[in-house]
């Protein structure tokens, strides 16, 4: 860890206030009513009071009322109306705003992959000016802050890291009988999987549908399939576009990714093709799944309160692939939710300040560590060591898996028209998963559809975006 240059008094103040001595925390000034918050409040005051309208799912909103009231007391700015829309529908609602251009909503809580499209629609206010004004610095683990920027301009403030560590059932994996049986069967000891092939082998071993235990618990439905696919693709060294903005979904790496994606059907629940999170999470929590890469929020769901599998999971970094010749491990972060300010709103300045206030190290720690909530997952370096967050996520092991996974996390295609690109891949992969076409055919069809989408959006535009998209990729192969 790097030592921060801080004065002794400041150090003491910070340590006393939070009992967390992480240097990053101090750098961000995360003490009670810390200077960062003071600066934001001071900056907000000159914009005057405002009553804001936001678009945010109630399951996210429920962490904010206290801070909202606090900010109202300090500045007179508060979120007074929230349109309660699930994450999946917010992009659609936001685009409907782009049609109506009413400025009724001040803040959209939307996934950051929508930023390029929303910027193109002229709906997003750049935040760097406000951040500078309030002396706010956006810090996220690893390369993760780039998820909030588009062509070097910050457009969103994170609320939810949403990375996917590897989950493996501890009680089964560490059972001496199982280990012996596995060693007998495969002639090698049962080890934490390093590659997708290892993972598949282990999952096959533990896949016992007659006992309601299913090897794999990732999603394979129409809304979520692509998330897993990108992870397989990136870990095989693949990338969905050439530098010239040509879709490259039929490369050997892409075929490998499709095969890896489809191979998990043999160890999945027979209903997985129709399952999204609402159906999968209860199965994971109830102990019917052996292994999965899944959003870190469930760690809090499993460990934060008594469930049938509390304490029965191992957490780590997802496996990788040696397809490219060296071992690369990749995780995925999508949808990463962020607060986006509506450029067309007459209250955008106040909305920006409100968003900044909710995202400071101290306040976001409160949001992430809210005891009954699991929807805001850690993203700030401070969260990784804050004891209250650790408490909610069931201790060090869970937090370490999140931190490490964040170091190698990857985005879906971060280009204009993301939803359309995503839909094409989701559709074809889920069709292949449902047995309607081969994996090869699926990526071929997706490639063709992508070609049309690129043509429609304009090659020049996409070409300009690709270097930024590439720059979001992790700098390391395997996290340490």
């Amino acid at each position, binding site marked *: 860890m790097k030592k921060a240059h801080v004065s002794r008094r400041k150090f003491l103040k910070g340590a006393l206030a939070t009992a967390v001595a992480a240097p990053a925390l101090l750098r961000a000034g995360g003490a009670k009513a810390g200077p960062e918050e003071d600066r934001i409040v001071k900056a907000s005051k000159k914009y005057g009071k405002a009553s804001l309208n936001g678009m945010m799912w109630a399951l996210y909103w429920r962490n904010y009322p206290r801070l909202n009231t606090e900010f109202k007391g300090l500045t007179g700015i508060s979120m007074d109306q929230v349109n309660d829309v699930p994450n999946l529908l917010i992009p659609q609602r936001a685009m409907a705003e782009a049609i*109506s251009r009413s400025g009724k909503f001040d803040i959209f809580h939307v996934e950051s992959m929508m930023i390029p499209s929303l910027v193109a629609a002229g709906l997003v206010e750049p935040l760097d000016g406000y951040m500078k004004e309030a002396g706010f610095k956006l810090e996220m683990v690893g390369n993760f802050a780039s998820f909030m920027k588009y062509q070097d301009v910050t457009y969103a403030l994170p609320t939810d890291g949403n990375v996917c560590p590897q989950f493996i059932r501890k009680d089964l994996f560490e059972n001496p009988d199982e280990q012996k049986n596995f060693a007998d069967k495969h002639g090698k000891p049962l080890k934490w999987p390093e590659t997708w092939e290892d993972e598949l082998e282990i999952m096959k071993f533990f896949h016992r549908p007659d006992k309601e235990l299913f090897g794999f618990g990732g999603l394979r439905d129409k809304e979520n399939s692509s998330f897993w696919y990108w992870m397989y693709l990136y870990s095989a060294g693949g990338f969905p576009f050439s530098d010239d903005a040509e879709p490259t979904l039929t490369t050997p790496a892409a075929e490998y990714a499709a095969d890896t994606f489809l191979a998990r059907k043999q160890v999945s629940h027979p209903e997985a093709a129709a399952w999204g999170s609402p159906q999968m999470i209860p199965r994971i929590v109830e102990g019917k799944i052996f292994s999965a890469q899944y959003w870190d929020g469930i760690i809090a769901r499993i460990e934060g309160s008594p469930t049938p599998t509390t304490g029965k999971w191992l957490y780590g970094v997802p496996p990788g692939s040696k397809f490219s010749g060296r071992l690369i491990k990749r995780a995925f972060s999508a949808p990463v939710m962020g607060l986006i300010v509506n450029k067309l709103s007459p209250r955008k300045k106040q909305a920006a300040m409100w968003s900044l206030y909710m995202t400071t190290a101290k306040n976001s720690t409160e949001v992430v560590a809210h005891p009954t909530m699991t929807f805001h997952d850690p993203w700030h370096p401070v969260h990784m060591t804050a004891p209250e967050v650790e408490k909610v996520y069931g201790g060090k092991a869970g937090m370490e898996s999140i931190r490490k996974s964040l170091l190698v996390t990857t985005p879906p295609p971060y280009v204009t028209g993301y939803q359309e690109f995503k839909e094409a891949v989701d559709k074809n992969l889920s069709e292949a998963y449902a047995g309607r076409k081969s994996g090869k055919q699926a990526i071929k069809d997706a490639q063709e559809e992508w070609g049309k989408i690129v043509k429609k959006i304009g090659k020049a535009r996409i070409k300009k975006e690709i270097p930024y998209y590439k720059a979001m990729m992790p700098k390391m192969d395997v996290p340490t």
Partner: protein
Amino acid sequence: MKRFVKKWRYPLFRTLMLTAWALLAGFPIFWITSTSFKPDNEWHKWPPVYVSKNATLDNYRMVWPIHQTGSIFVTPDQKGHGVAHESVTANKPWHALKNSLLIALSSTAIAVAFGTLLAYGVSRYRILSDTRMFQLLVLRMIPPIVVAAPLTLYYSVLQLMDTASGLIVVYFITSLPYAVWMTKSFIDEVPREMEQAAEILGASRWQTIWEIIFPLIRSGVVATFLFILILTWSEYLLSFILSKVDVVTLPVQLSKYEGSTEGRVYGHQAALAVGITFPLIIIGIFIRKHLVRGFTFGMVKR
């Protein structure tokens, strides 16, 4: 014995068949009602729990909070953090109920009022030919999804987005065809002699409608009103697309459980669903006799 068999064979068969379908028809409604009283550990249990022995009202308390201070999503707190702060969304179901009532009732009332007048005109003065009458049905038959995008833009220009009046107008349009058709079938049955008599006695046309026709078709108008109310009450797509924060209706409120990442919260969904469905069921039972007449569009002579 043989005679006994012959006499009872058909009633027995009939009762069996009818009971079978009644079970099929009633089971989902039974299940949702039963689920709304289940504690959370029984929602996905295997074997399924049919009637909970630990019945609870918690789901209703969560979804339909009576106290304005509680946030609906704050579950009983395990770790001591206070939940004293009011959530903005806390009153949403009640707010949605209010919107649903306002929008459904007023759009239905307007549709039935204009529908009745039009139907009177059609029945007595043929202001619309048969063909036009059927073409009116097209309004109802075009899938709303087809016009959703232009409607969004149009409404934004008219400043009707997210207003109760905007939704009322849309529902007025989509329910007008049924209103005209149904009330016409009632008006057709009123003998003309009464109007002629009224006319000879010097009553104006509006007086005739209000004082002669309306009292005679009142029960039919009630049936029409309630039937259209059912359709408007359950409409989802238009309401979803044309509302923002102010006029969210109950079906839209329920739809937020779609893709809920915390797992299917069956109990809460069921409690909300019961709240949406039961008013309709009560209305439906109340108007069941009238539905028969309203539905047949004059195809059946009585």
